[in-house]
């Protein structure tokens, strides 16, 4: 499924003209023709506005200034100000930098490993490889609480406990199953004839990978990269348990802003905007690949 969504679906002109089939290009801006069509449009609009309410609440509250919070969650501030963002930035910028330092290397390395594994599993299947792959996939679904004590002790042994490097290592290791799955599905869609041709020319496994497969893998890397960046940036559990204050990712610091007695909601919401911004931007700019990653994460 993943691979299909990555590649443009071939549409013949004949198909395109037939009424009733969805035609993506040229974009149709035709208004509904039937009363039923208008009802569908109205329901979609209302539901979508409903989905946007929490987004509005976050932004409106974040703009309400640096002193506490408005008296009502739906209120839009009379005098919108960025004051709350100043406070949130002061508390969060270190953690945002940590999140970036954790996310980028962990996503890059786990994607590379996943790409190599996916290539081997799809193009050079060996005896028992699909069973081993299934065994590997279990790692994608386990609750991490079931391994957190050994992971903690392991990082302690290596003196990586509480460090950014320790978090990177953990994210890479637990990222291998999902990236392997995404790349395996992706490479299944690349014709094996290409590999055969490279083999005839005398290229071995590695040479075929670096010279033939890697150049063809850009869409796969975009999908897996977005998926991993979002997952790792949004992680809370590992950061919460394995990091120290100096290496806290942004999600942990945001959660700590809640405090114990009173909550400064305008600052909290400004913080939420800062933490959400990178993944939301990634989603809005590369939405198509984001959806591909979603369906790729589903075992068929």
């Amino acid at each position, binding site marked *: 499924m993943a691979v299909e969504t990555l590649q443009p679906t071939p549409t013949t002109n004949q198909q395109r003209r037939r009424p009733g089939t969805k035609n993506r290009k040229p974009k149709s801006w035709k208004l509904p023709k039937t009363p039923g069509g208008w009802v569908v449009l109205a329901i979609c609009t209302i539901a979508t506005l409903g989905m946007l309410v929490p987004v509005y609440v976050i932004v409106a509250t974040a703009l309400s200034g640096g002193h506490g919070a408005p008296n009502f969650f739906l209120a839009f501030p009379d005098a919108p100000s960025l004051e709350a963002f100043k406070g949130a930035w002061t508390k969060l910028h270190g953690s945002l930098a940590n999140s970036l330092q954790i996310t980028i290397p962990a996503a890059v390395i786990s994607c590379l490993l996943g790409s190599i594994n996916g290539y081997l599993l799809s193009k050079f299947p060996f005896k028992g490889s699909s069973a081993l792959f299934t065994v590997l996939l*279990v790692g994608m679904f386990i609750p991490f609480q079931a391994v957190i*004590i050994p992971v903690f002790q392991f990082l302690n042994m290596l003196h990586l406990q509480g460090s950014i490097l320790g978090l990177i290592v953990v994210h890479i290791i637990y990222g291998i199953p999902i990236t392997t799955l995404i790349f395996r599905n992706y490479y299944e869609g690349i014709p094996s004839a290409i590999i055969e041709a490279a083999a005839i020319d005398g290229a071995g496994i590695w040479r075929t990978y670096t010279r033939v497969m890697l150049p063809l893998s850009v869409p796969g890397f975009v999908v897996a990269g977005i998926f991993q960046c979002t997952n790792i940036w949004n992680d809370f559990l590992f950061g919460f348990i394995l990091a120290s204050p100096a290496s806290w990712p942004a999600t942990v610091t945001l959660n700590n802003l809640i405090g114990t007695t009173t909550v400064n909601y305008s600052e909290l919401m400004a913080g939420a905007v800062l933490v959400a911004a990178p993944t939301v931007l990634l989603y809005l700019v590369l939405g198509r690949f984001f959806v591909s990653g979603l369906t790729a994460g589903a075992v068929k």
Partner: protein
Amino acid sequence: MRTSFRPPASAGLRPKKQVPHNVKTSRRAAWIFAPSLLVSFVFVYVFIGVTVYISLSNWKIGTSPNLSLREPFGGTYGEIIQEQRFQADIRNVVIFTVIFLVLAILGGLVAALFIHHVAVGKGLFRTVFLLPYALSFIVTGVAWRWIFSPSTGVNQILRNLGIENPPGWTTDTTVLGALNDPTGTDFLKVQFGIPVALLPIIFAAGWQLVGFAMAMYLAGLASIPEEHLEAASVDGANTWQRLRHIVLPQLWPSTITCFVLLLHVALKIFDLVVAMSGSGPGFVTDVPGIYIYNYLSSRYDKASAMAIILLLLTLAVIVPYLIRGYRRERKA
């Protein structure tokens, strides 16, 4: 390196697969794959084994390991299942999972059906519905904590609608439709029913993940051949009949995928509850994830036992799903 294309003898190859290559190449592939597999094996299977062992041991504080086995065998499990907190956690995670799954899957299905058929703005509607999925559970959690905060949140609207005493939401200890009333001497120490305090958390989780279900269903809808629907129309089937007999059956695979993936998210729920309420009064919003986290500082054995119970719940769903995927692949 010369690669011969003679069909491989027997060892280590599945001849039906595409690439003709020799045993040597295949072995090499296995060796390159081995380190990833080994690392994953250690960090998943071996570490789970370690956790199982800790759950059976006397190890309490992390810094002073005590690896002697607890007497009687499995005593920690016997200890925790009698706790009020453990029972509240099981109730909460079951209620949370059931209501959340119904909400997200039905919501996603309905949203997909409408968005699939809308005349304009399909891309926009889809983008908005999936937007929350890009957020961290902590961001969602703080937003919904604010929306349901008792004095400034939705309760103001409820009061304007004439509801005198709106619920206290995440701090409310009411259990709706309670099946039992524990007296204190019973084995069951919590009321089984729907805790009001869980509802805001369920709404928040539903908001975040309904778009995921929608995306799965939209992918399923796109794969239904238009001809089938046209043929049914020609045969006189109305909209409902087409939905009931053609569309829904073909969406079944999407439903299974949504069900399994969302179920495992629900069982593992942790961040969202931490950000919205924590354990709550009388553990009314406590979940296994928080239980485990709390006991990491004082009782390794109890934290591990709960983690293993959570793992078994997850595997009960995931393993059949993965085996199904594996079988289908072998057939293909």
